């Protein structure tokens, strides 16, 4: 498994996590203060409204690969944080 990327978002939400996670406009609801750093391999980068999504595989200590999706703001806000439509590509 290739590990080539360190992703740091103000909010990272994992589909595999057992707790409920807010989605659309999450910045106003849950986990606004929680910073999570995850290393993984990019599967897809959706530069789109209403919010951008980064999909990536994360290999755990037990060797299992877990699919994660991280939500950012809309492109016009993500742009001001330095993200671009080509910031990630599959395999990164």
């Amino acid at each position, binding site marked *: 498994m290739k590990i080539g990327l360190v992703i740091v978002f103000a909010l990272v*939400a994992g*589909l595999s996590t057992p707790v*409920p*996670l*807010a*989605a*659309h*406009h999450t*910045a*106003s*609801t849950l986990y606004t203060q929680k910073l999570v750093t995850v290393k993984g391999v990019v599967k897809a980068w*959706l530069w*789109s*409204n*209403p*919010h951008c*999504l980064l*999909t990536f595989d994360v290999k755990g200590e037990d060797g299992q690969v877990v699919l994660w*999706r991280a*939500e950012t703001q*809309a*492109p*016009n*806000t993500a*742009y*001001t944080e330095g993200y671009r439509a080509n910031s990630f590509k599959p395999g990164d």
Partner: protein
Amino acid sequence: MRFSSWLGLVGSALIFAQTPLAQSGSTATWPEPVPARRAIAEKDKKPAPRRSLVGMWGAMPGNRQATNQSSGVQLKPNNGKPENQLPYTSYGLELYKSHKPLEGADAVPPAATNDPRVRCEPLGLPRHNHYDLGIQIFQDEYKIAMLYQYDNQWRIIWTDGRPLPKLVDGGGVEINGQYREPRWFGYSVGTWVDDYTLDVQTVGTMPEQRVWLDNTGRPISDQLRIRETFRRLDFDTLEWSETIEDPKVYSRSWQTMKLPLMLQDPRTDVMTRYCSPSEVDAYNKAYGDPVSGK
């Protein structure tokens, strides 16, 4: 009512003629698509032009959240605090409780929302004033046109002295004795109070089944009256105030915003934000539905 239609009617020369930020062809470039001018030093401030709102207006430096208003209107965020409770009528409270917003004190998971915005319905007025602002203003001797960044919508404010239409019970307005239908942006007329202050009134907006006041599900009805004041504080600063009166929904009028905006680089080819049903579907399929347990 998309941007492109409007641009066919209004030449961009209007704005270039009145803003010193415009550049000659030899220095033409593509500025950043999200305008963010820095603060202007006191010594560099200039007086406002007379009776002009022309320009591209955006957030003050470091205050982008104020133009987003995603957690409720600027002066009354929906955060559960007592000072931000609204003077609902019983009907207004019933309406509010029927709304399932994605944001605010009563937010629900994405799959449970009934926010019209998520279906890409037009926000209408005044909700367009309360979400993801960035506006471009053009004007001529008859009217002011406001182009909203979110979903590329536009609105006309008539400044040629015509009267405000009469609001009709049940929605819509009466003009010259004839009934006119409710509209997403209503019917707006503006009057210059002085050389730097425009007072705008709007009636005839869409009924409560079609529109919300803000992202947090606050309601409005077809009896809404909107009063806006645009004050040009100096060349680079516009203050935009709004008060609403809606006796069906609120027991008294109240102020929603008093928002300072900064003049931005008029050359900006702004990054737009369309609401695309297929993009919303893709988002919900990948993220919104799973986190809702759907």
